[in-house]
């Protein structure tokens, strides 16, 4: 076209470039060069250059630049509405992005969607179901990932962890000794600030009413320097300085004091008091309810000074090994935490002078605590990064399923739309226009689905929140909506791309002549997409079968003790209960509805602390191993129905009497190298230098959740302190029994809270995370099955429509209805069978991995896979058979007369 490049243009006009003003505004020139109506680029640029020179002469620089810019804006697309095509003698189609064409895309898209309502509805339902899932999962994942990041300095905050070496290996704890914080702050310049936390669950008394507060945290005044919490009332610098000071959250304050001003009031807490009747804490501040996306929350903040005053020994050198406190560091800017962690690894050895110590220190970034830390004695239940991965994958999978549905249906329908494409091409549509118009169609339906899913998610959110225990909101991260819209458009484009290319590639001559009949094109792709859908569905459903079987196994596994019906009573540190327990027990045990009463230091459900134990093996050689330990009374084995293999039970103790008797379990026999139960009897057993003698061996029983194997166990006889009372009650009259226990409790302990829980509820709570996981997974599997079946339904409807004539002819030449149904089903059940072949090994592998989480697990067997496969096959069969039978029953006269 004789157009010269910019470089040459500049050379050809050396004189005009004396000043910038001699040239038109460069942005306008650029616009003109990019967005001129096609075919007119050259002449317009040339003409306007001339005009600019003219305007310079007549109107001055400013006027010329202004007029140039105005002219450009009016000439460029899309503002120039000139029908440029007709300037040329030969025909030239409209630009693909011409405003008229874009209007046309939307118009035809809406018409098409309305014309095929069933088809649009199938797509809409599938896509909105997928998007709803995805939205909820995205919200959940976003929330999980946001834990603790609200802290301003979260990237400089680290938790000090303690690793303990023993012969059984290493275990890492989230807690440290109380002295660690100050030691670090005083001796290491890298540390800017430290804070200690101690979490307690205690009874609070106010106005004669007792409440159990499960989330009391005792901490230093530096809490407010390290973490980004603000006070509404009170001074953060001084509120936690004095012992027995307490900061309440807004809702806790409202609970206890209503509309009264809580500042300066007293609250009785059964914590750190020498009397056992509660100590008075002064309210020195009010804090807003803490954000839920933190790895710890609280309802009250007590001053750590309280502990230092009440238990001064926690600050001595011996206290290095008493790990009861969470220590957080705020490192100075620019400190490499890994290097610093290496430096403090031997903190215990350095500061206690004990070169042989088993303790190692390490640091853990704050942001890792919620998802990446599975340490012992975490401050609260953590999430796992694996769950994030699993649910993100499921979310994407379900979105994929919905997208595949669209692609499949649109491709299958392409035959029906061949004529449309033919006509459009004949009247001059070009390929890019057709592609774009079909893409617009898929994007529109995806956006409609987003709208529907937004409404559905909003409706489901309250339930979802209740279920997950979070408070999620659709508009909370405003970017999420943008992200979802982006994902939706992407989904529309991806699922519409293939059909758009298939459709736009039709040859007008052949389709209009009618030669184009079969939908052979894309059959392979379509079938493999269906296979993929069913692979995903099968994976999810097999997962559900296995998970449910495992959960049922856990619920019904013989735990080694009799759990019908046990009731737990919590002491909550009440001194009255501990002191007057015997009278209470005697009174209660006399009742015929009560099968037995016992008190112990730990619950049987939550695992026990392990200690180093020393004894001798069969040959008298000293052995040492980590052994779990708890203290019970003489009734314990009877109440729990735990069988003795050898030796005898504890003897009942008179007041003030102590006992050195120890009972071990079967696992301990193996650990300490005793051949049989009789071997163990009479062996010395020493913990913390306290001598003891083994008097009995019990059958193994579970004292933790079934994720954990049974560890060696040593049962001691308790003398004074205990924390839990277990009552066996008549399982036929549980409510009467509870009533009796409550009465007896009130009679003996009028000042103590009656805090009870049934065994099965406590157990369910223990497996809540797994239950939750399986419920969510079943919801998703059901949904994916629904989406896959919807897609199948759409496909079979079009296939039977396509084969109307084939079926007619077959019937005329003698095919039976049954034969035709089988013929139709064959096509659609094949993918399901293939999917089964692919999914089974993958599912086997995945579920095998999942089961590794449990020390006690079911073994995978064929029926789980067969069952899932059969279920899916049945659903697919149901979906396709209705349409197939309908098609097979049609009178051939009807289907053939039109030709």
């Amino acid at each position, binding site marked *: 076209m004789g157009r010269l490049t910019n470089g040459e243009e500049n050379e050809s*006009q050396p004189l005009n470039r004396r000043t910038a003003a001699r040239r038109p505004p460069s942005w306008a020139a650029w616009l003109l060069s990019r967005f001129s109506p096609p075919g007119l680029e050259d*002449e317009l640029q040339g003409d306007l250059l*001339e*005009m600019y020179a003219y305007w310079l002469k007549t109107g001055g620089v400013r006027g010329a630049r202004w*007029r140039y810019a105005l002219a450009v804006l009016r*000439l460029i697309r899309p503002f*120039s509405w000139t029908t*440029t095509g007709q300037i040329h003698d030969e025909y030239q189609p409209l630009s693909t992005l011409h405003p008229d064409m874009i209007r046309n895309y939307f118009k035809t898209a809406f018409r098409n969607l309305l014309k095929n309502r069933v088809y649009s509805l199938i797509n809409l339902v599938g896509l909105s179901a997928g998007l709803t899932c995805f939205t909820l999962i995205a919200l959940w994942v976003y929330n999980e990932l946001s834990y603790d990041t609200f802290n301003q300095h979260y990237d400089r905050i680290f938790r000090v962890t303690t690793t303990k070496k023993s012969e059984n290996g290493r275990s890492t704890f989230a807690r440290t000794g109380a002295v660690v914080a100050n030691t670090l702050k005083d001796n290491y310049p890298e540390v800017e600030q430290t804070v200690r936390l101690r979490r307690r669950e205690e009874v609070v008394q106010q106005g004669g009413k007792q409440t159990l507060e499960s989330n009391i945290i005792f901490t230093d005044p530096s809490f407010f320097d390290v973490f980004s919490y603000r006070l509404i009332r009170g001074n953060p610098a001084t509120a936690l300085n004095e012992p027995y000071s307490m900061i309440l959250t807004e809702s806790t304050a409202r609970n206890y004091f209503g509309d009264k001003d809580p500042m300066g009031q007293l609250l009785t807490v059964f914590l750190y008091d020498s009397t056992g009747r509660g100590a008075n804490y002064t309210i020195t501040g009010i804090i807003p309810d803490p954000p839920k996306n933190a790895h710890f929350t609280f309802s009250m903040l007590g001053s750590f000074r309280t502990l230092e005053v009440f238990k001064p020994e926690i600050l001595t050198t011996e206290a290095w090994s008493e790990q009861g406190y969470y220590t957080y560091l705020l490192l100075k800017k620019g400190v490499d935490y890994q290097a610093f962690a290496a430096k403090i690894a031997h903190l215990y050895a350095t500061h206690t002078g004990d070169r042989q110590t088993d303790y190692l220190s390490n640091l853990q970034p704050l942001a890792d605590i919620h998802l990446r830390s599975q340490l012992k004695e975490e401050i609260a239940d953590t999430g796992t990064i694996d769950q994030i991965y699993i649910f993100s994958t499921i979310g994407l999978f379900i979105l994929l399923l919905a997208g595949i549905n669209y692609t499949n249906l649109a491709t299958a329908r392409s035959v029906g739309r061949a004529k449309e494409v033919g006509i459009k091409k004949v009247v001059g549509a070009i390929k890019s226009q057709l592609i774009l118009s079909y893409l617009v169609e898929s994007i529109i339906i995806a956006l409609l689905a987003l709208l529907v899913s937004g409404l559905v998610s909003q409706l489901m959110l309250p339930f979802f929140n209740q279920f997950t225990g979070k408070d999620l909101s659709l508009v909370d991260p405003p970017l999420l909506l943008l992200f979802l819209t982006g994902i939706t458009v992407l989904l529309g484009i991806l699922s519409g791309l293939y059909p758009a290319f298939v459709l736009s590639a039709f040859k007008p001559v052949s389709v209009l002549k009618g030669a184009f009949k079969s939908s052979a094109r894309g059959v392979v792709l379509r079938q493999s997409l269906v296979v993929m859908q069913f692979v995903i569905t099968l994976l999810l459903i097999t997962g559900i079968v296995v998970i449910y079987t495992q959960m049922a196994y856990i619920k019904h596994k013989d735990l080694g003790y009799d759990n019908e019906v046990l009731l737990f009573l919590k002491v909550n540190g009440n001194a009255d209960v501990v002191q007057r327990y015997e009278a209470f027990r005697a009174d209660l045990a006399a009742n015929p509805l009560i099968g037995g009463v016992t008190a112990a230091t730990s619950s049987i459900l939550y695992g026990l602390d392990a200690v180093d134990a020393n004894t001798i093996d069969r040959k008298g050689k000293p052995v040492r191993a980590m052994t779990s330990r708890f203290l019970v009374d003489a009734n314990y084995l009877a109440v729990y129905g735990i069988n003795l293999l050898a030796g005898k039970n504890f003897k009942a103790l008179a007041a003030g009497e102590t006992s050195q008797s120890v009972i071990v379990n079967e696992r301990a026999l193996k650990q300490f190298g005793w051949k049989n139960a009789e071997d163990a009897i009479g062996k010395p057993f020493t913990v913390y230098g306290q001598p003891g003698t083994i008097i009995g061996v019990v059958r193994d029983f579970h004292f933790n959740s079934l994720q954990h194997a049974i560890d060696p166990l040593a049962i001691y006889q308790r003398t004074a302190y205990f924390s839990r009372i277990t009552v066996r009650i008549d399982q036929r009259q549980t409510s009467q029994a509870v009533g009796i226990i409550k009465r007896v409790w009130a009679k003996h302990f009028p000042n103590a809270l009656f805090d009870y829980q049934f065994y099965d509820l406590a157990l369910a709570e223990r497996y809540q995370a797994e239950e939750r996981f399986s419920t969510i997974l079943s919801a998703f599997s059901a949904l994916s099955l629904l989406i896959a079946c919807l897609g199948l339904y759409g496909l079979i409807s079009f296939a039977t429509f396509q084969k109307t004539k084939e079926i007619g002819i077959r019937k005329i030449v003698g095919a039976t209805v049954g034969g035709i149904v089988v013929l139709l089903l064959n096509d659609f059940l094949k993918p399901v069978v293939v999917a089964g072949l692919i999914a089974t090994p993958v599912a086997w592998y995945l579920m095998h991995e999942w089961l590794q989480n449990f020390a006690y697990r079911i073994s995978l067997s064929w029926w789980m896979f067969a069952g899932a496969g059969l279920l899916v096959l049945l659903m697919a069969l149901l979906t396709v058979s209705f349409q197939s039978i309908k098609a097979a029953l049609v009178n051939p006269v009807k289907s053939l007369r039109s030709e």
Partner: protein
Amino acid sequence: MKRAFLGELEEVVLLTVAALQESAYCASITQTIDQQMARSISFPTVHTTLQRLQEKGFVSSQMGGATAERGGRQKRLFTVTAAGQRALIECRHMRSQLWEQIPTQVIQLWGV
């Protein structure tokens, strides 16, 4: 088919094309109208009008005549077609008919 109608602006532009003969292209036409008719007219308006005239078949165009002052880019040169000529002549004819119908005294009174 309805007779192609020549608007006032179209008439002016078409006349200018005829007047400029070989050197009639968008920029020169705009400048001529601007100078000679003392009428402020924007370049895009002329551009659009020319396109409309071409659609109606009153002008035809071909490319040519790149000069240095326009950055070496080609011009679209317009020529009046036979149909354009007819339309112009008819226009002029109609006007003179109307002129002739004005009574002579009135014309004299106007001092034309």
